[in-house]
């Protein structure tokens, strides 16, 4: 039987004692999928729940393995590369150190392995700045660094929380290209986004989160064409 990448069953998560995620059921297949929704609906907390960073109840299975209750480093070692909201690069490490200190052979075969060299190929601008400290970069470069840092773990799933946030349109274009390149290497990607235009360019498969629960799963294009549904779930249209 073909395993889904992520299966979430009745997942509840708490952030600072507040009950944010209130019963999420979700099945994510391979390829590129997204979770969208307005601000404050619990998308980021759901990501943190998957990564084991917040108090979580319920069941989250990653390629069939239960990960609720594991520590973040154990979950990462199972093959999840986390690119958090706000990037969270390290001011005390250089760009190059970001790409080497946590590098792992992970789950990629030798030909497909992501090394710092391959990341520099993907993001030439990072190579030019490899000795700069992690937070001395522009917004777009920091996003590239955060993605590169997750890639060198050679994960089976990339988790990105609002990757397009605060980025200029030209950078966003580059980001779309990058996702295309990574996707072609059979990397599974889960994006959490508020920017629907960006999301559309990357994937059509979406799940809408409303008030801590999943309210819709399906095609993003169809959702956007349905004015009434768009307005109800996303507040636009």
């Amino acid at each position, binding site marked *: 039987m073909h395993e889904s990448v992520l299966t979430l069953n009745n997942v509840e998560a708490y952030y600072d004692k507040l009950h944010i995620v209130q019963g999420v059921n979700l099945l994510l297949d391979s390829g590129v999928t997204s979770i969208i929704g307005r601000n404050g609906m619990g998308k980021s907390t759901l990501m943190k729940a998957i990564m084991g960073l917040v108090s979580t109840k319920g069941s989250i299975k990653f390629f069939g393995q239960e990960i609720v209750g594991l520590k*973040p*480093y154990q979950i*990462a*070692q199972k093959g999840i590369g*986390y690119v958090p909201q706000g990037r969270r690069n390290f001011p005390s*490490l250089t760009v190059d150190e970001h790409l080497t*200190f946590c590098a792992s052979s992970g789950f990629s075969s030798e030909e497909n392995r992501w090394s710092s060299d391959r990341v520099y190929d993907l993001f030439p601008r990072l190579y030019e700045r490899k000795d700069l400290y992690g937070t001395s970069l522009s917004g777009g470069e920091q996003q590239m660094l955060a993605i590169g840092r*997750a890639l060198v*773990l050679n994960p089976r799933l990339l988790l990105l929380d609002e990757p397009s946030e605060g980025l200029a349109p030209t950078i966003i274009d580059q980001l779309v290209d990058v996702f295309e390149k990574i996707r072609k290497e059979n990397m599974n990607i889960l994006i959490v986004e508020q920017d629907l235009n960006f999301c559309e360019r990357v994937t059509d498969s979406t799940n809408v989160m409303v008030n801590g629960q999943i309210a819709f799963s399906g095609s993003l294009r169809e959702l956007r064409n349905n004015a009434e549904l768009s307005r109800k779930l996303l507040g636009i249209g």
Partner: protein
Amino acid sequence: MIYNLTLLLNGITYAGLLFVVASGLTLVFGLMRMVNMAHGSMYILGASVGWLLYKISNHNWVLALLGAGVVMMLVAFLLQLALYNKAYGNPILGIMISIGVSWIFTDLSIELTRGEAKAFSPEGIVGSTFQLGELTYPYSRLIVLVVAIAELILILIILKKTKVGQIIRAGVDDRDMVSSLGINIELIFLGVFAFSGFLVGLAGVLGGTMVSFSTDGAGSMQMLALMVIIVGGRGSIEGAALAALMIGLLDSFTSAYVPNISTIIVFSFVMAVLVLKPQGLFVKEVRKQ
């Protein structure tokens, strides 16, 4: 002139001792967000254990020094494994646990020293003096300075050039993120805390040789260590070195010239830093967590 030179050297060597004590504390505070209120009592316990070894080995100073370091390293290792790790993410809990630990360690130290002040006065180089022009100065203080400088260089090399050092630097910035990248941060905590135990044990014997030690001194050493990390900045080794130097020199000169208010001056300085620059004088960037 000689008087001021002596004061200068006293300040610098005292700073050396403060650095050895506080360097472990600042790494622990930076990485684990834990203020180890038992650090001062660990210093005295290290000195007391060293004293025991010194007596047993018939005044073998080097054995006492290294033995104290190793014993305190093991103590710290067990402490982190059994107790302190439960305070992850809860600084107040950590403080309270460490306060309880400090009382236990102080009683142990009293037991080992029978509550009397002790000093290591070994024969040989360590106990003798050398000439610097017209000035006669004790070797013991010079040794403390040498150890401090060696330690500073060693830690800086580890931090800048090794993978563990990179992990520690990243962990001081954002330890949850380091964990999210697949690195077992708790193992690193264990290692760093054990290392801080080694340093504080060493410092106990060094301080007990340079001056003396008594179980009453746990509280003041704790305060001094806290002052160094407050002024130097959380998690900053360079900051700790510079802060130790500032405090060491300040203490040395004010004790000599204005003894009645020397403490007030030093404390006012630290208070000022806390109020005006709570992240420390020597920290380049404040990362909001």
